């Protein structure tokens, strides 16, 4: 699974993207965020206020309860500010 981070979320986690292998207990975006946050404090910090986080699954905006698969591309970013 490819995970992308943008804007200040990218800055907080310190990387633009990463590849992970999804474990079976991760079924939704929410599960993924919980797992990511558990890894290191910088991740927990980036996802500490989920009201400021948006997600896209395979380049489509999604809700946090969206079910995800291992070959999905998941992107986390702040609310868009437009062009």
């Amino acid at each position, binding site marked *: 699974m490819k995970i*992308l981070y*943008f*804007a*200040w979320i*990218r800055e907080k986690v310190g990387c633009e993207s990463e590849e992970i292998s999804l474990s079976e207990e991760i079924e939704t975006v929410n599960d993924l965020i919980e797992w990511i946050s558990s890894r290191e404090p910088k991740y927990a910090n980036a996802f500490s206020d989920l009201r400021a986080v948006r997600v*896209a699954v395979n*380049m489509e905006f999604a809700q946090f309860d969206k079910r995800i698969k291992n070959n999905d591309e998941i*992107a986390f*970013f*702040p*609310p*868009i*500010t*437009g*062009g």
Partner: protein
Amino acid sequence: MIRVQHQDFDPGKELQDLTSNNKNIGGLASFIGLVREFSNDQKLDSMTLEHYPGMTEKMLLAIESQALNQWPLDASLIIHRYGCLNPGDRIVMVATASSHRQAALESCTFLIDWLKTEAPFWKLEKYKGIETYEWVKPTSKDTQKTKRWKSR
């Protein structure tokens, strides 16, 4: 046609290209967005537009296609720049051509309202004389303008 690019563009050439092969275009509406020197009462040094390559193009194609369905357009163009831009620089251009001027004007307004609020970009502003920078927050005012179109 949509283009997401870092480099600048030539509005005159873009407008010319859009209408050159169709003599039944009666009206060509366009909007060019520029980087303003003052933002939040602070003098801007630069603005960096971050985007999600792939998703940006996908969303721009989708909104262009919606405009083409909603209005009788002969041609349309969306160009959006990303990366580091300075005050006075062009950010975005929308142009719509139709045999009917109202269709061109309305669809141009629709597209730029959408782009300014819903396009997947994040703005980082750096100000003159300050080391820090700021990620711009979305304004509720802008979001309401897009809602106006959705409720039609």
